[in-house]
């Protein structure tokens, strides 16, 4: 793997693992509860005197709390160091930025690879099925533990955006503003279908061992890599993939076999191979399941607007990308229409980009401007300097 082109400047100001005592379990949608709960997080910047400048960033499916810090496994810069940093949209001089690994994750927050206190071994499939609302509930516990009543903003893209709208539905009184990016209020049949392919790839790997691979000292790396390869295709647009690779070959001439002849094959194999170093296969199953179960309108009588009825004081911004076919514009617009119907103030922009779903992680100046403009206006309204 190529060494990271650059490393994040050291702007981290805190973090670690918050251990909630056994008396403070995480109550799950499934009816089960998780205890003890540990939440791994990072912070950037400092909480101001009136505790009005806290921003929670929610990460996507395979993201983690290393928002703007070098990743301990890959050595790569933080996944959103384009947005969080000095003079950027989320400037640590102005905001206290928090990012926590989701429950079910594998970077320090309690997940299927954590030790089950009941057995003394890794949970594996004994880990309870979790939901987006469970992730948000764990975040709310952390935010409260950090002594913060109201978040200036909750921001996230993709699965992070799902958490943002869930926050708005469950804890509107704790939010001043909310930014949901390239997301949806429910998983579509196509979304579920792609996730099912990924899960089946993991479970088809003989090393998966019914989820008990850690005990056996093996890992279903091939299955997880294939899952990642399939998923990665959904994160980029056809145009971006073609621009990057076309039909270019790795070497001169065809191999007349099944080597990675095409550059796009080699690229996907690299994506798969590097992913298994940093991600737990069971976490992948649990988190994709949480996303598939996500349907914010469901518990609100099937009417999405009802989920936002209590969020009328929250200022919303929804951003989508024209070439995102994973969570397309129409899904994002559905959130905006529901917000409007609920009487919430919402801004919405469909950013012109040919980079596909991952555009929110990439260089998109118009997106940066929109996010920066929205946050600056809200900061002014909130009286932040």
């Amino acid at each position, binding site marked *: 793997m190529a060494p990271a082109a650059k490393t994040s400047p050291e702007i981290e100001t805190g973090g670690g693992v918050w251990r909630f005592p056994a008396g403070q379990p995480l109550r799950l949608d499934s009816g089960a509860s998780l205890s003890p709960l540990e939440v791994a997080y990072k912070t950037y910047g400092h909480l101001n005197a009136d505790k009005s400048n806290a921003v929670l960033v929610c990460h996507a499916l395979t993201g983690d709390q290393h928002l703007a810090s070098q990743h301990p496994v890959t050595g790569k810069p933080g996944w959103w160091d384009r947005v969080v940093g000095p003079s950027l949209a989320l400037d640590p001089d102005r905001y206290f930025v928090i990012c926590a690994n989701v429950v079910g994750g594998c970077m320090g927050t309690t997940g299927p690879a954590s030790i089950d206190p009941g057995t003394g071994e890794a949970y594996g499939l004994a880990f309870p099925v979790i939901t987006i609302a469970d992730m948000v509930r764990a975040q709310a516990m952390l935010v409260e533990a950090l002594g913060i009543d109201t978040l200036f903003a909750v921001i996230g893209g993709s699965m992070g955006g799902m958490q943002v709208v869930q926050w708005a539905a469950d804890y509107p009184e704790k939010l001043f503003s909310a930014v949901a990016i390239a997301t949806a209020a429910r998983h579509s049949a196509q979304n579920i279908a792609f996730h099912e392919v990924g899960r089946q790839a993991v479970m088809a790997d003989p090393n998966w061992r019914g989820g008990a691979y850690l005990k056996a000292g093996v890992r279903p790396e091939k299955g997880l890599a294939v899952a990642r390869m399939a998923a990665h295709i959904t994160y980029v647009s056809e145009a971006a993939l073609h621009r990057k690779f076309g039909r270019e070959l790795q070497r001169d001439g065809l191999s007349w076999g099944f080597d990675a002849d095409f550059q796009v094959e080699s690229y996907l194999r690299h994506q798969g191979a590097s992913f298994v170093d940093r991600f737990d296969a069971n976490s992948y199953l649990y988190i994709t399941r949480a996303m598939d179960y996500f349907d914010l309108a469901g518990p609100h009588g099937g009417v999405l607007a009802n989920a936002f009825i209590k969020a009328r004081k929250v*200022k919303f911004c929804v951003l989508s990308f024209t070439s995102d076919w994973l969570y397309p514009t129409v899904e994002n617009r559905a959130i*905006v*229409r529901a917000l409007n119907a609920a*009487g919430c103030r919402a801004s*919405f*922009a469909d950013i012109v980009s040919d980079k596909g779903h991952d555009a929110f992680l990439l260089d998109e100046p118009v997106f940066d401007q929109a996010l920066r403009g929205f946050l600056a*206006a809200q900061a002014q309204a909130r009286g932040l300097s």
Partner: protein
Amino acid sequence: MTAVREDFAEILRLVRPGSRVLDVGCGGGELLELLTREKGADAQGLELSPENVSACLARGLAVVQGDGDRDLDHFPTRAFDYAILSKTLQQMRDPRHALSELLRIAEQAVVSVPNFGHWKMRLYLLGRGRMPETKALPDPWWSTPNIHLCTLRDFIDLADDLGLRIDACAALSNGKPARAMDPKGVLENWRAETGLFLLSRRAEPQPEATPRNLFGEVELPKAEGPKRTRKARK
């Protein structure tokens, strides 16, 4: 900064301070910014062009990228005090529906329309026999976004037909301050280049009580519907 556009100045004059305003077709957000700054309004925009939406967001304005033809339906009833539609009605697919929607989602609507009955238009058409191209409507027929042009009289008839009341009305000409006008004035349909209207819904007429049938089998004459000045056209 240059002088405030004459229609914006008139809108600023009409809008109560601190009110909730929806600007449909808000462009780059000039009016939204004026309303926020000068009137302390809680202003939101609806805009089709992605460039304009990004510009609005970068200026810190609340704006939804959307289409006035499709997205008005998604706003709740009486969500705003004012809905503003500046020289855009003639570009909409269904102006009748749009106008009706504006007055569902807002208490009052401020609507300005270019007057196709202006003397320059009439002379142009009469003299040259071609579709008019004027300062107010500069595009040739084959590229104009104006697909539903009307005269002031046409507009007033539509408002009347929809049960709308004209609370205020002004004539606008390029570069000149707005001039109050009598919407029924015959000359205005020649003189006003653009008409700006403050509209609200007329009080709902009380439904006529249906007389109880005290006589068994005898059929009672049906109550007539409310009289209309013109037949509604679909």
